[in-house]
């Protein structure tokens, strides 16, 4: 029993953090916000150069073959720097789906190799999300038709943009016609792929929400330690301290829930769905509170366009309801906890 990360995993996270700190500064995020496509090919290229697109790709296709547990650290960094790119959709969620396709799908290996070298963008249209993120700049869209999985070239789909309050999010309504040429899985196999993709998608945004929460907390600590009123930093006042202590506590107790969920998905545990929904709720609530208390301790500055807090706050608001809103995840937890077969109580935390 060892519920911790290896030194290698932690060093990897540290390296990702250092890379993104320089490559994804808030000023650059603002520049990308103002572009039409909302994506920077240059940033994606540098991310691929670092090998970050290759994490989920099997080693046989030139990737690193990392699992969901490693991604639970990686997605926190993506959230912390609010990467304006659907990096995780392609490199984690879509890569996981494609890697699980049978070898009989001719393009499978080509897609995986192109994910690794950063030359393909893949959008995932899971039925739980009404709109598809990054459909517009995608090369390939993975779309659902009943249980079927279709890999649709961008040229065969129409995308109607639906702008979000989070300018890093580029959402689209996808209009397309299924046909046998685009179908890559169907029936039981398709159902299983969409089910596994759901858990990965939820884990991905959960980690990002936690990273966003941490960033908003750090910004708020920096601001309240500097800003003076009544002749003192406002961060010395208890009312302000307690707001931020509550955020720190919420983050601290969401982390292990995320890690447990990631491990459950990686191992294919029977209770993975419940663990994942618990993680989404815990991380979403941490991010939501970090935003609310963050803007409060920033005072009027928090309501401005100028202060960076808004970028992280809006992203948190948007991601909180993506990949299943709270009602969806609460229903999954309730179905387990209040169900007849639930193994509850001490000693069941690791599925014994």
């Amino acid at each position, binding site marked *: *029993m*060892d*519920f*911790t*990360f*290896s030194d290698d995993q932690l060093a990897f996270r540290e390296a990702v953090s250092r890379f993104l700190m320089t490559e994804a500064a808030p000023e650059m995020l603002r520049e990308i916000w103002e572009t039409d496509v909302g994506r920077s090919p240059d940033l994606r290229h540098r991310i691929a150069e670092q090998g970050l697109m290759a994490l989920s790709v099997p080693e046989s296709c030139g990737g690193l073959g990392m699992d969901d*547990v490693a991604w639970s650290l990686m997605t926190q960094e993506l959230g912390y720097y609010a990467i304006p790119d659907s990096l995780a959709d392609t490199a984690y969620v879509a890569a996981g789906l494609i890697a699980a396709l049978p070898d009989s799908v001719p393009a499978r290996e080509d897609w995986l190799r192109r994910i690794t070298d950063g030359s393909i963008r893949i959008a995932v249209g899971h039925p739980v999300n009404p709109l598809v993120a990054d459909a517009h700049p995608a090369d390939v869209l993975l779309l659902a038709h009943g249980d079927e999985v279709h890999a649709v070239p961008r040229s065969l789909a129409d995308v109607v943009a639906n702008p979000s309050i989070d300018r890093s999010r580029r959402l689209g309504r996808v209009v397309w016609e299924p046909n046998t040429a685009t179908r890559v899985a169907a029936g039981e196999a398709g159902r299983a792929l969409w089910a596994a993709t759901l858990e990965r998608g939820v884990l991905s945004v959960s980690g990002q929400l936690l990273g966003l929460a941490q960033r908003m*907390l750090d910004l708020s*600590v920096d601001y*309240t*330690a500097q800003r003076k009123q009544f002749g*003192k*930093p406002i*961060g*010395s*006042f*208890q009312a*302000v*301290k*307690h707001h*931020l*202590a*509550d955020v*720190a*506590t919420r983050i*601290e*107790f*969401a*982390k*292990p*829930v995320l*890690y*447990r969920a990631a*491990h459950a998905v990686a*191992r294919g545990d029977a209770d993975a769905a419940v663990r994942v929904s*618990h993680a989404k*709720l*815990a991380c979403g609530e941490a991010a939501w509170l970090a935003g609310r208390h963050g803007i409060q301790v920033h005072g009027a500055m928090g309501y401005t366009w100028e202060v960076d807090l808004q970028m992280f706050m809006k992203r948190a608001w948007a991601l909180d309801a993506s990949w299943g809103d709270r009602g969806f995840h*609460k229903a999954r*937890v*309730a179905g387990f*906890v*209040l169900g007849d077969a*639930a193994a*509850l*109580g*001490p*000693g*069941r*935390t*690791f*599925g*014994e």
Partner: protein
Amino acid sequence: MDLAYTPKQRAFRAEVRAWLADNVPRTPLASYDTREGFEQHREWERRLFDARLSMVMWPEALGGRGCDLIEWLIFEEEYYASGAPLRVNQNGQLLLGPTLMEFGTEAQKQRFLPRMAASEDMWAQGWSEPNAGSDMAAITSKAIREGDHYVLNGQKTWSTRAIYADWLFGLFRSDPASSRHHGLSFLLVPLDSPGVTIRPIRALNGKDAFAEIFFDDVRVPVENRVGDEGKGWHVAMATAGFERGLLLRSPGRFQHTARRLVALYQAHRESADRDPTIRDAVCESWMGAEAYALSAYHTVGRLAKGARIGDEASTNKIVWSELDLKMHETAMRILGARGELVAEAPEAEDGASWLEGFLFAQAGPIYAGTNEIQRNIIAERMLGLPKS
């Protein structure tokens, strides 16, 4: 990350589970806040000790088993899942015990720890004073050195179950010219010493659950001092974070309560569902208890790898105390009009155990450092915000 228990850990769990199944009293003991219940709980502690299960983490020479922290978590899970009695000597065993292991002399360890493990000595705390509550450095009770003794004068208060206890550990001002956290010494005081007067304080539950203690020229041998003279604050604080954070309230206790709450909800589902927020609160209780357990395993794993527990331990106390409160509030809402019935009421549900837990849960955010103090610690030491 390897989330499977080892064969040794599984065997230990099986052994503990079997022993508890054979030994946990069939009928609940009387409240340990009464004389009768206190002695029943002491008796239970002796049985645990005889099975070497009272302090599983302590070395074998001191009556324990030398278990690591994972095994301790396993023990706690089984302990609370079995419905075994609350631990009556916990303040001594979990707060003073580790302090003695770190700062005590060899003679002190030999003298006090085995008897503590066996609950032959029952320990009460002596921290708070009438004017030193959250501001503990305002302590004024004195311990003036006279040869090989200290002479104690002053008053301590809020000392849990002190009227039934044998010994007290606490902080006294040994340097009368000192102020704040300087010049304090950590002393062990027999409560039958001449000059000690203990007056019970009736608690919310109507029982003498805590007490105030008056010291009137009480002579305590110098050998009863833990750590250096004048360094008592350091001794008291050094182990405070971890003990308050994790040891004092292990996750099994709250997971057990969460499971009972789910069962209570299911038994009263029809009436409970008239308030649609109850169902949500029940599920959140389960999630909260699981999160606390996961956090404990994560922390314990990091400690095993050589990490030192940091100021984030203060987040634990907030989480478990607020979770406990929320679970008991939810139970009271489910019970509705019968929630107020005390144990003697013929129509009380489950011996009024939810009501008793609800009353005790009110104290959680207050004792062991109020949650406001914990939030200050988090803000100042974990987040680095300036002191007020």
